């Protein structure tokens, strides 16, 4: 509260500041907004729920009654269907390795003769020779599995 000195300083006693804090009424803007938001948050879903009442209605009387699905049929369709799909897709994924068999993964115990692939002009007649000092170094990479 502005001191009464603003009125030209005629009063001798003025209120510098309130000692007690006045109780805030919802007149402040932020509080009003918060209250409104709270009410809307509760009211909106309830309104939507009751406004959707037509969805709870039954099928029109003119339609013929459908037979309820038996448990067996339901089980077959909803459980058997996905399982069958699962099996088919797994088979398609693993078929190549099943057909190929296990032999190539296990490796071999011994090897009798070398198997060469490549253009025939690539292989010279003489057996492999040691690298000489003057040769530039070949490169490459190694790996083991």
């Amino acid at each position: 509260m502005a001191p009464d000195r603003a009125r030209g300083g005629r009063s001798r006693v003025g209120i510098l500041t309130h000692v007690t804090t006045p109780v805030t009424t919802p007149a402040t803007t932020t509080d009003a907004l918060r209250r409104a938001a709270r009410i809307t948050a509760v009211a909106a879903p309830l309104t939507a729920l009751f406004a959707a009442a037509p969805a709870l209605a039954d099928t029109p009387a003119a339609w013929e009654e459908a037979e309820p699905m038996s448990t067996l049929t339901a089980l077959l369709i909803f459980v058997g269907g996905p399982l069958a799909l699962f099996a088919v897709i797994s088979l398609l994924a693993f078929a190549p390795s099943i057909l190929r068999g296990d032999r190539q993964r296990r490796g071999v115990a011994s090897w009798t003769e070398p198997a060469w692939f490549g253009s025939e002009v690539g292989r010279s007649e003489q057996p492999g020779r040691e690298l000489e000092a003057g040769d530039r170094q070949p490169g490459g990479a190694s790996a083991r599995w």
Partner: protein
Amino acid sequence: MPAGEFLSETDRRAIQRAVTMAQEQADCDFSVCIDEADGDPRAYAERLHAGLVAPERSILVFVDPVARRLEIVTGPQLRRHLDDSEAALAALAMQTSFAAGDFVGGLTQGLQQLAEHARRPEMLHFDQG
């Protein structure tokens, strides 16, 4: 084990086809040798590579199925375009396939990868659009 049991006739044809395609693509010599190495596989592979007709522009993929080792040897002239890290990537791809049991697929993929890197890139000049 004779090579025929490990590699069927279909496998051998597929590998030969892959080698031919790699050679056409990269315009250098590719060789694949599947054999049991006599001693250290790396040294053995380099000896074999040096025994090729034109080793400086040849790539040898050596596979030892007994020791389960794979060696790629690249000729010095090819190392300009196909450096060792690219060869290591191809080796890694092949190693993964071999470990899963796909021998032919691994070789095919590895050869293709090597051929792509070894191919000399076409020179595109600014003034030629």
